[in-house]
């Protein structure tokens, strides 16, 4: 039943609290309901009232009414504690699939302080923080990066039960935070562009990267290896899937090629990703060739970011 209402609720929240990069919590965005502790509190109040009635004790009545009033006031205080808080999403760094995304959120007080503000993606795992009056606090939340491409952070839950814990004021915000997720790097042989090679025959300084020139031996098959290098004979002998490995002796610029790899798209992108990182670390200039895209031969951070971006967005850009 609850699942069936979920989309209705989501749509309603989406209309009521439209996405925005900077949100001030106000009466339109704050919901408030009693918590389970609030239920216990009500039960205690009821017991106290029974004692007061049965013993006709004015002081016990007084205590009951005092606690009832405090309970009612707690609504105002809980609401006040969270209202006026300004949230905005910070810049998030791109990560690779499988790594946690660090999303930074800024909490800003525009007037009074806010205590025990809990933030998180679901109500079970929340980070708590205080925001002092007229101060700015930054909170980091993590999300698992599951899929390559643009990742949109889910709606953020902001809540607080301060001061008494008997009411919970919360909101459900979309701060329009997006992160680019790169493919997961997977090690393997270097997928070099076949055939056409630039002609820079250098003075014998040989790159010993994987290549096509020299047979090196056999190794176990990994996803993404080209079918052309399969050692079918070994397979037919029942020795499992083996791949023939070659190394490249050339000294010219490298061009990583999507088509040089086998396997499905994600596996190929993962292998390319690994080599983009690897070559960038070696500060070796390289080019990247994807269907419909060919980068310049270059090195450096900007080039690496550009290549990773292409890999991340390959085939997903609408």
């Amino acid at each position: 039943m609850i699942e069936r209402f979920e989309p209705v609720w989501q749509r309603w929240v989406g209309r009521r609290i439209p996405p925005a990069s900077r949100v001030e919590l106000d009466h339109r965005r704050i919901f408030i309901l009693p918590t389970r502790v609030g239920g216990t509190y009500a039960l205690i109040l009821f017991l106290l009232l029974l004692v007061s009635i049965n013993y006709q004790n004015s002081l016990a009545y007084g205590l009951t009414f005092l606690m009832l009033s405090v309970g009612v006031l707690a609504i105002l205080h809980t609401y006040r504690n969270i209202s006026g808080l300004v949230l905005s999403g910070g810049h998030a760094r791109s990560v690779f699939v499988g790594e946690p995304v660090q999303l930074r959120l800024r909490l800003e007080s525009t007037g009074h302080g806010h205590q025990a503000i809990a933030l998180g993606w679901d109500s079970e795992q929340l980070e708590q923080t205080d925001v002092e009056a007229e101060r700015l606090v930054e909170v980091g939340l993590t999300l698992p990066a599951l899929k390559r491409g643009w990742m949109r952070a889910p709606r953020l839950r902001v809540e607080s039960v301060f001061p008494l814990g008997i009411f919970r004021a919360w909101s459900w915000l979309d701060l329009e935070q997006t992160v680019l997720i790169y493919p997961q790097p997977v090690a393997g042989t270097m997928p070099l562009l076949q055939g056409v090679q630039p002609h820079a025959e250098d003075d014998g300084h040989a790159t010993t990267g994987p290549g096509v020139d020299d047979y090196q031996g056999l190794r176990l098959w990994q996803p993404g290896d080209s079918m052309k290098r399969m050692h079918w004979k070994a397979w037919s002998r029942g020795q499992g899937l083996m791949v023939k490995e070659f190394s490249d002796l050339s000294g010219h610029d490298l061009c990583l090629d999507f088509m040089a790899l086998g396997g499905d798209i994600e596996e190929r992108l993962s292998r390319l990703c690994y080599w983009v990182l690897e070559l960038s670390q070696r500060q070796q200039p390289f080019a990247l060739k994807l269907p419909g895209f060919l980068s310049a031969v270059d090195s450096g951070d900007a080039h690496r970011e550009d290549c990773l971006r292409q890999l991340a967005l390959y085939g997903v850009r609408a």
Partner: protein
Amino acid sequence: MGRKLDACLNAINEVVLGKEPQVRLALTCLLGGGHLLIEDLPGMGKTTLSHTLARVLGLSFQRIQFTSDLLPGDILGTSVFDRDTGQFTFHPGPIFAELVLADEINRATPKSQSALLEAMEEGQVTIEGATRLLPDPFFVIATQNPFSQGGTFALPESQLDRFLMRLSLGYPARSAEKALLLGESRRDLLPRIEPLLDHSELATLQQQARQVRASDALVDYVLRLVDATRSQPQFAYGLSPRASLAILSAARAWALLAGRDYVIPEDVQAILPAVIGHRLRERTDPTGHGGGALVQWLMREVPVL
């Protein structure tokens, strides 16, 4: 007055080609009453810029070339025994000028550096027990080579803080460089520049700059910026109150230069890289640069309104 300032800017831009933003910032710095640090490779026109500023503003100009064997006395001046009168007479050093160009300041030893920087801070020098006032107005334009160059003594943070701004001129644009190559030598142009302001006018302008209105909302923005440097993890340390004052006075001067009598956040953003770039250090890299990236981060992330 506003027209005069525009005229000054134009005059300088005629000599220093293709550096309008930097020229404007340099003038802002002087209007704000601060000292300027220019960090660049040799030959980028640092000397030309300072010399032109001095000429246009009608200031007396001295240049001190800092070398590793420069002594404080070479900057401040020394007393020399005069055989005719039988007394010591004081020969003022090059610092007794209204605009002092301290060239390649980071090549001198810290001792000589601090002689200059103390004079900048105090507005007076004490030599052999006698205190001598420096001229008013008194500006220092110091240049330094990038850190990577050999044989340099880097200025410590405390000294850097005394410069209102740090600029970097950078390579000229292609067209500007072409004009430079085709035109007359810049040095030859200099003597022909007429002073456009006298001392009293300069003083009035500085006074006006101090009176430019900074509203509550604007001061709040400055405070937000400063607060962010103090609370965010990527900053090695936060900005000092002197830095917040520097931001405000530079923003005022910038607003005056733009012909406004109040400051808007855009003024703050315009001067921010120059004013706090040299005062910030990244936590992960507390010695190097990275100030620029931090300033960009601040301008992007700190709410403006």
